[in-house]
């Protein structure tokens, strides 16, 4: 394990990944960050199951933090910046998830394990791995590490904004607080503040039998840290760490004044001492008793007290009182915050100005094409690529209508003839769009993406789909054939002419080359062509990763252009029907095959 360097941590720009989610703790870290005057939350990513994002307050406003299922899903740019982890998952999952963090985050320097109940064998294994990776780990069962004004890694110091202020956690001070207990570390932090001092740093060792960062290492860190001029230590009965601390003092390896309190004298009352609050808190031998350990520390030069009340007086007498540094923003009112009912990143009313994607609506409308606005709003940010804009513009025009024969148009026409209004008739047509009508663009995109990302060859994918007896969406046409090509497809594919890689289009054409050999009309159709060209443009011109493209497929993004464009056609059919006024549509008996007597 890398020894923890507090002075260096004070200069760190913290980028934290939380493994597991805990609302109160995460919120308290964001409150700390805002009160410390940071421009952005120190938490960059959460790894947890469930939702894709979680909303938290950042000061009086709100931010949305990204949630990833695994550490591998974090975008590379963020992965490279993450330097601290806070493991909030349950004890049994700590080993695996912490190892993953150490193996995959190149900038990582340390982390905290919050869970109680990490199996001993896992703790020892994790300790050995952390040494190999040159990373310090505090815990398990630790409420964390705090450096005033710099970062708060865990519940330490409290979860209410008011608590942070009362404990003067924005004032760089000189007393290091080290405690085996999470509750007592906070009690000590508060005592430091109320006796006129401030913290240089504080950490909770955790009450487990084998804490990864030992009290010894915490003392040595305090000794190395120039800003620290005194150490306050809380220990408990059980274990022999305090003898090592006594040795540090008597051998002169720690020279700074130490005040210490060791709890657990009460164990003498019990015939068989109970397991006190923490896993370690069980004195197996006389040497592990609170009194014996307190005596050893006292003999080595630490200031100790038999009673806790006297101990607080010792803290009062520590040198170097510190003037308080107020937080940059006040905690007042923060406890009364209420989350907004919904969140939106598309548009907003800002001081009476309507903005879309952060830009004034009127300016956006004046300076941009409809296609640019459409694709930007669908993707949730302003796109850069002119090629994408031009392609979307062409697609929107190309897809406006495909005759009154197709299902959606027929339904619109029937609704219109039944006397329904514009929106009902349009909705009737739109509700027809699905797996068999109009939905093939997204289905084709799913196949091209799977083919390329899954490292298939066109042949292996065709074989796999054939084995599953599935159609290849995006392939096949009623009228056009390989020797009578669809002119629209040729036009669509022209948009890839200047692309460097166009791997999706190449893959789709590779599939077509195989299928036309089976049957001449199994050509790449309009749906398949739109899908592969869009994938290539998004990947090459907008930098979409495979995972991001998969998310688009999962949300039917590729059908959205069809829905939008074809709405034009459906409404046209509605107006047309009203003008023609044909009367209600009805089938005759001869137009319905009667199968009711068939067994």
């Amino acid at each position: 394990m890398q020894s923890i360097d507090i002075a260096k941590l004070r200069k760190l720009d913290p980028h934290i990944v939380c493994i597991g989610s805990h609302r109160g703790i995460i919120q308290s870290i964001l409150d700390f960050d805002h009160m410390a005057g940071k421009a952005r939350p120190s938490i960059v990513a959460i790894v947890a199951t469930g939702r894709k994002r979680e909303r938290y307050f950042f000061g009086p406003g709100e931010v949305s933090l990204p949630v990833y299922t695994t550490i591998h899903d974090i975008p590379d740019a963020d992965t490279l910046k993450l330097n601290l982890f806070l493991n909030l998952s349950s004890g049994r999952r700590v080993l695996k998830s912490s190892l993953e963090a150490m193996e995959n985050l190149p900038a990582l320097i340390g982390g905290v394990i919050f869970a109680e109940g990490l199996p001993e064998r896992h703790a020892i294994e994790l300790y050995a791995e952390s040494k190999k990776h040159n990373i310090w780990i505090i815990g398990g069962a630790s409420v964390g590490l705090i450096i005033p004004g710099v970062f708060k890694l865990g519940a330490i110091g409290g979860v209410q904004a008011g608590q942070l202020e009362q404990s003067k956690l924005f004032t760089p001070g000189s007393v290091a607080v080290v405690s085996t207990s999470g509750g007592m570390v906070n009690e000590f932090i508060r005592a430091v503040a109320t006796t006129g001092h401030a913290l240089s740093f504080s950490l909770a060792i955790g009450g487990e039998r084998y804490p990864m960062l030992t009290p010894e290492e915490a003392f040595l860190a305090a000794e190395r840290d120039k800003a620290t001029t005194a150490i306050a230590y809380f220990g408990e009965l059980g274990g022999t760490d305090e003898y090592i601390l006594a040795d540090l003092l008597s051998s002169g390896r720690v020279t700074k004044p130490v005040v210490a309190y060791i709890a657990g004298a009460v164990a003498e009352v019990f015939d068989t001492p109970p397991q006190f609050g923490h896993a370690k808190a069980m004195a197996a031998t006389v040497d592990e008793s609170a009194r014996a350990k307190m005596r050893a520390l006292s003999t080595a030069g630490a200031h100790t007290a038999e009673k806790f009340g006297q101990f607080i007086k010792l803290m009062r007498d520590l040198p170097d009182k510190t003037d308080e540094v107020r937080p940059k923003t006040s905690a007042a009112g923060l406890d009364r915050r209420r989350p907004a009912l919904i969140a939106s990143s598309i548009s907003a009313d800002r001081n009476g100005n309507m903005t879309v994607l952060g830009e004034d609506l009127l300016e956006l409308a004046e300076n941009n094409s409809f296609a640019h606005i459409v694709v930007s709003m669908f993707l949730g940010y302003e796109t850069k690529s002119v090629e994408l804009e031009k392609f979307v513009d062409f697609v929107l025009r190309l897809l406006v209508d495909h005759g009154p024969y197709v299902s959606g148009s027929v339904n619109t026409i029937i609704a219109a003839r039944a006397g329904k209004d514009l929106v009902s008739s349009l909705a009737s047509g739109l509700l027809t769009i699905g797996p068999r009508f109009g939905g093939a663009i997204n289905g084709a995109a799913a196949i091209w993406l799977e083919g390329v990302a899954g490292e298939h060859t066109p042949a292996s994918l065709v074989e796999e789909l054939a084995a599953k007896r599935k159609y290849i969406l995006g392939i096949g046409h009623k009228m056009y054939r390989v020797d009578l090509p669809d002119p629209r497809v040729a036009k669509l594919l022209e948009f890839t002419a200047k692309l460097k890689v166009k791997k999706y289009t190449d893959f789709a054409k590779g599939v077509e080359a195989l299928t036309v050999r089976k049957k001449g009309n199994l050509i790449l159709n309009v749906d398949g062509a739109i899908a592969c060209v869009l994938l290539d443009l998004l990947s090459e011109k907008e930098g979409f990763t495979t995972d991001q493209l998969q998310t688009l497929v999962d949300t039917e993004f590729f059908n959205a252009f069809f829905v939008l464009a074809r709405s034009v056609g459906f409404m046209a059919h509605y107006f047309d029907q009203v003008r023609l006024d044909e009367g209600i549509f009805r089938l005759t008996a001869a137009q319905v095959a009667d199968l009711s007597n068939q067994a």
Partner: protein
Amino acid sequence: MPRVKISEFRSKNILCSAFGLPYTGVHIDATTDWQKQIAGLSKTKRYVVKVDQGVKGRFKKGLVFLDRKHSQLKADILALSKKGYRFVLIEEFKHHTPDSESYLSIERTRAGNMVMFSTSGGINVESNAAAMKSSLMKPSSAPSVEQALGLKADSMSKLTAAFEDNYMAFLEINPLVVTDGVPQFLDAAIEVDSEAGPFVKEAWTVSDFRDPAIKTPEELVVEELASTSQASFRLKVANPNGSVFLLLSGGGASIVVADEVYNQGYGRELGNYGEYSGNPDEAETYLYTMQVISLMLKSKSSQKVLIIAGGVANFTDIRVTLQGVVRALATSKAALRRQHIKVFVRRAGPFDVEGLANLRAFLDREKLLGYVAGSELVLSEIVPKAVASLKAGE
């Protein structure tokens, strides 16, 4: 509850299967229809009968019967059951000479697995400390242990594998008798890491855990509560007729407060130790408080106080937990008043102002108020206030 003893029966099963040896011990639960189990045993063999409940020093306490006939088994079990013990182990009695008894233990430490062994084992192993050798378990050190104890080569690797696979924390075989290189486990005690249940494929389960203490119904309820909650709960009776009862929060703070009771000279008057932490919800805190109240009301002491205390919580919601406390106190308010019990409170943390105000209003209204304070009072200083009220009533 990280390191827990498992039964001797389960321990020997695990050890024997590690060496591919049969194990024929019979495990008796005195609360079941155990007579059938005895009827199934051979009438001609000789047996050992012993309490299997994690009790230390069984020989010296008279909880082991050696060389018993089949006809004596029933009376032996009844005798142990009458003493309050529930779990009994019956094994075939095997003769061996005391000087063949060795000792072997393995303990998990941060540095690695520490092996201790001696060829002078048995109940007086401690008086032969000079014969005890110890070393960190490494493949290279195994042959020397095996040779010293007369075990076949690869015995230590089998034992180490069983130790690791079963997430043992401590293993002690004493006496160990070795015949032709094959171990016999005359007595074996294993402590496992209770947190490792998900990783041992039911080689041992919670039902194998043995605790020598005989528990009160209140302690059993809290054990159950702890096993079904994300939060942590502990309760241990000290003096059932004590005068100071504790409702404490936080692993460390709870010891500080209990210490202060002891420092004030009221250690023998302590009715219980316990703590809750990890942000329990209202209902859990209610249930826990009910158990402390139940113990307190049963105490025959004429003067009683309840101390509700904890440090400055990091993330436990004080408003919610104290709400559970108030609801529990309200169910017994008349009984508490009749016994002149006063309540002393020191607690802080998230939403403490509201939580403490509610509790104070309740105590005041019900005439149970001793003192209520937040972080302005030093954690331990609530104890002298409670003790002073006891002294005033004496």
